[in-house]
């Protein structure tokens, strides 16, 4: 008993400090470093630039193309309405600056400077100028962490927009990704545009991802293609967060009722 007490008296301070350190580390881990990211955002705020400035710098040709695309989209929407599709008005997104990258080298993540205070939720879709970049996996009041498409653990259902052949995309930790096809002999060429498919539950269908760079049809077990992301995934400066509620398999228009028999 005496030796135990003496041992305690000698090591009391060290044990208390050690348990304090482990306790706070566990706390930080459980809260997913909420406090750290908030502090980081607070400290780096003076160095961030407003996303609005970037938008002004976009060149005129791009704007022209966007306008024409918007025109086409609305036309498409109208035709779909005529056919009886549900019209989905996309909500305006939240522009957010990229304030940091992943805290280790194995994960492809970015930290955006907008959080729950601005209405960001876990599962929201992040789009950069050029195309889809990733998905929000964690939010704090002022920051949100995004898992990029280039991370090997993120997989997205994708489709070749020209020939409608489907597959999924697997990140490669660079600005290239591998698309694995479901079909044995897909019709795919260099330069084809790849978008998210309607089978993807985590992302809405039809978002641009990238272009086919090369095709390997002899790959076993399934043919593969190398995709180059159209958004600058490795040097993002700002992105737009769109809210998205994952809805499993809603490829069939929901309000279409079976045709009454004539």
């Amino acid at each position, binding site marked *: 008993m005496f030796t135990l007490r003496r041992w305690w008296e000698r090591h009391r*301070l060290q044990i208390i400090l050690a348990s304090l350190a*482990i306790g706070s580390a566990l706390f930080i*881990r*459980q809260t997913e470093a909420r406090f750290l*990211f908030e502090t*980081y955002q607070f400290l780096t705020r003076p160095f961030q630039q407003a996303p609005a400035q970037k938008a002004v710098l976009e060149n005129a040709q791009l704007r022209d193309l966007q306008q024409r695309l918007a025109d086409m989209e609305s036309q498409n929407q109208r035709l779909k309405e005529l056919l009886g599709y549900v019209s989905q008005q996309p909500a305006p997104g939240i522009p957010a600056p990229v304030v940091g990258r*992943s805290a*280790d080298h*194995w994960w492809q993540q970015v930290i955006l400077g907008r959080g729950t205070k601005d209405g960001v939720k876990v599962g929201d879709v992040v789009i950069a100028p050029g195309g889809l970049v990733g998905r929000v996996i964690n939010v704090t009041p002022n920051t949100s962490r995004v898992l990029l498409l280039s991370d090997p653990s993120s997989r997205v259902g994708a489709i070749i927009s020209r020939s409608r052949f489907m597959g999924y995309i697997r990140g490669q930790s660079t600005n290239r990704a591998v698309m694995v096809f479901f079909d044995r002999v897909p019709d795919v060429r260099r330069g084809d545009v790849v978008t998210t498919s309607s089978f993807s539950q985590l992302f809405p269908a039809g978002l641009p991802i990238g272009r086919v760079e090369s095709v390997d049809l002899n790959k076993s077990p399934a043919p593969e293609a190398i995709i180059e992301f159209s958004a600058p995934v490795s040097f993002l400066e700002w992105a737009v967060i769109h809210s998205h509620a994952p809805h499993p398999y809603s490829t069939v228009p929901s309000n279409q009722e079976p045709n009454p028999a004539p």
Partner: protein
Amino acid sequence: MKSESLSRSWQDHPFSRLLINCTVTVGSVLLCLLILPTRLPGMELAGIGPNWLLIWVVAWSVKRTMLQGALAGLVLGLIQDGMTAPSPTHVFSLMLVGVLTARLRKERYLQEDFISVALIAFGMAVLAETVTAIQYSFQGDRSLVEIWTYHQLIALSSAILSSLWAPVLYFPLNRWWEYMSELKVL
């Protein structure tokens, strides 16, 4: 002199000395954690920055026991798990780094502090990334070829950068801890 009176007052009040020491130590950890998500120009190589937590663990364990090294690895590993993702965990790699750094017989092989810390940081960075790569291999959701080609890239860049930046963190911290232990002995 002012610093003398300061050290005398710290000598007289062991509790305030402990408090200051803890504040400086925790403050340096916090600084490392806040630098971690940045990629400052000149501090990155192919999108990869120095592994600041590893540098801190090395600086902490160089003149401490294996248990203390393991403890530092555990604490910082848990925090880094919180900042990225809990699996694969960073606890194993950082604990191993702490234990091995404390275990190394530096006085036998290496004399000069500056060189030895840089060398230790280089070796430990390679080791830590290898431990993570092994964990990924067991997890099995990526192909082995992908894991190990990527491992080559990040092990090398992170080792080079960590060893170059290690003295920046090691010197002030080491001076501080030496100063504190001198006060305790006196």
